[in-house]
């Protein structure tokens, strides 16, 4: 793990999907076993350049997610390393039994990419807006469940999972997302990143909420509240050590996720705390609601996923100490 954090967090010039395609091409050049599958969303995910470069190793099954996951399982049993992509709700809801039985229960080596997490599904609206995908995937025994924060982390994690046997689920924003890390940073799956140290409250965030958490920490500092910020990009196996250490150090926790808090990061962190170090926990996330259509900024306000929501939650958590 060698991590350098950017001094100023701002929107990336590079889209997550182009980071993914570029990395997959790089990996496929070195490893003939890599196969990229999609269910009619190669255009949407920007993986057409991969298809152009490796026409035989880009398998677009058309609009049939269940078959795609089953074919991926079959490719794996015959020694290939399949990476399958579709929108997160289709991967985790529509093809769930195929993911569960054909890939995970059969103990195969299948990499699943679900795109457009939570409010980033934006104008596709409620049918396409997954607030439950990570929770669903966490329930699959032995699956590794990751939400890469930015392009740097995504590239590094894609490179790692090629060599780690098993079912991996990556929840990936398609377009741009705030950049947190400097180029070349490397991460350890299952080990969170301490982005900022603090003593009054710990904000454990993931995905879209990481940059919001950093902004919240700045706002809290203006009020002399010292916030510790953690990027919990691996939801499973979750970094228990960092969660307990944060509870020890600050005595109050805020979780922040672009996901339903029922079965989400808040629940996962709370599970660790109740067994090890019970402290007050406040959860910023979607409170058991469906998605709806709108721009990301509007949706962040609508579901309470902003820096200001994290600030309020932090104060509530501190008060409950």
């Amino acid at each position: 793990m060698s991590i350098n954090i950017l001094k100023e967090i701002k929107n990336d010039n590079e889209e997550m999907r182009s980071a993914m395609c570029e990395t997959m091409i790089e990996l496929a050049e070195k490893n003939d076993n890599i196969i990229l599958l999609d269910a009619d969303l190669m255009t949407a995910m920007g993986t057409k350049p991969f298809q152009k470069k490796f026409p035989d190793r880009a398998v677009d099954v058309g609009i049939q997610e269940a078959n795609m996951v089953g074919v991926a399982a079959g490719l794996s049993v015959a020694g290939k390393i399949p990476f399958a992509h579709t929108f997160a709700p289709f991967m985790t809801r529509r093809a769930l039994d195929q993911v569960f039985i054909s890939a995970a229960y059969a103990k195969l080596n299948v990499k699943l990419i679900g795109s457009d997490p939570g409010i980033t599904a934006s104008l596709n609206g409620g049918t396409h807006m997954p607030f439950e995908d990570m929770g669903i995937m966490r329930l699959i025994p032995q699956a590794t469940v990751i939400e890469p924060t930015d392009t740097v982390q995504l590239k590094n994690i894609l490179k790692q999972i090629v060599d780690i046997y098993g079912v991996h689920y990556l929840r990936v924003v398609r377009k741009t997302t705030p950049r947190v890390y400097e180029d070349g940073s490397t991460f350890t799956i299952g080990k969170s990143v301490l982005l900022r140290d603090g003593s009054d409250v710990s904000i454990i965030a993931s995905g879209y909420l990481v940059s919001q958490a950093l902004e919240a920490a700045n706002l809290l500092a203006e009020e002399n509240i010292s916030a510790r910020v953690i990027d919990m990009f691996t939801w499973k196996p979750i970094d228990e050590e960092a969660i307990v250490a944060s509870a020890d150090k600050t005595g109050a926790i805020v979780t922040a996720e672009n996901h339903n808090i029922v079965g989400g990061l808040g629940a996962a962190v709370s599970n660790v705390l109740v067994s090890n170090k019970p402290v007050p926990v406040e959860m910023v996330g979607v409170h058991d609601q469906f998605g709806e259509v709108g721009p990301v900024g509007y949706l962040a306000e609508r579901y309470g996923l902003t820096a200001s929501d994290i600030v309020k939650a932090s104060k509530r958590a501190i008060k409950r100490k």
Partner: protein
Amino acid sequence: MDKETARERKRFAKRIQMETVKMIAKLGVGHIGGALSMADLLAVLYGGQLRHDPQNPQWKGRDWLVCSKGHAGPGLYAALALRGYFPLEQLDTLNRPGTMLPSHCDRNLTLGIDMTTGSLGQGASSAAGIALAHKLDKAENIVYLILGDGEIQEGQVWEMALFAAQQKLSNLIVFVDNNHLQIDGPTDEVNSLGDIAAKFRSFGWFAADVCGHDPVAIDDAIELAKRQTEAPSVIVLDTVKGNGWTATAGKAGSHSRTISEDEKNEALLEMQQAYDEI
């Protein structure tokens, strides 16, 4: 296939059926109907068509078999044991705690089982994936897939049917064990499958209808399928569920049922007589 080979396959099928009955009776209950109906197919495959090596189940040059109707595992376990993948006594452990022979096929537990199945329809896509992997490698392995007739009510089978034709998976040979019964009754009464071969043909497949209890017909159809260079193949086997034992043959309740010691003896007597007459 010459006459003596055909008789050999028929005898092998009877032995598969007898071992299946014994193994299920040992526990007292199990999925007997769909295991018995595919015994003749297994006899043709494990009697000679399938390239395999019981001493080296992961042999690179082998043909693959995905039994997507995973509940028919006991029939397959009988064939595997008879071919030497594991001792026949192992069959007595079917569905016992810690067994390597679970009710539904599991690639991680049983030598000779290529894919984990049990959630119907899913083995179809897995088999297509295995076939695609070999096609990409320009390898000559054949992937055989066994589907139940009721199973093809699952939409995933038809997703695969489109996909395999598009990908020109001529190394994929599918059998539909068309035994006309599912748990809740005749397939025609529950949700009729119509002309299965015609449906696959319309998807761009090579399709053949044959008697599923005639080893010569099955073998001939496989030879035709192996000659396909572009299209995947389906061989629709007209079969009788619970075939080989009067108490189960053509009976809707034969999907899963209890078998007492007396019933086992009755079944074995009937099967032994049939064996002796071959």
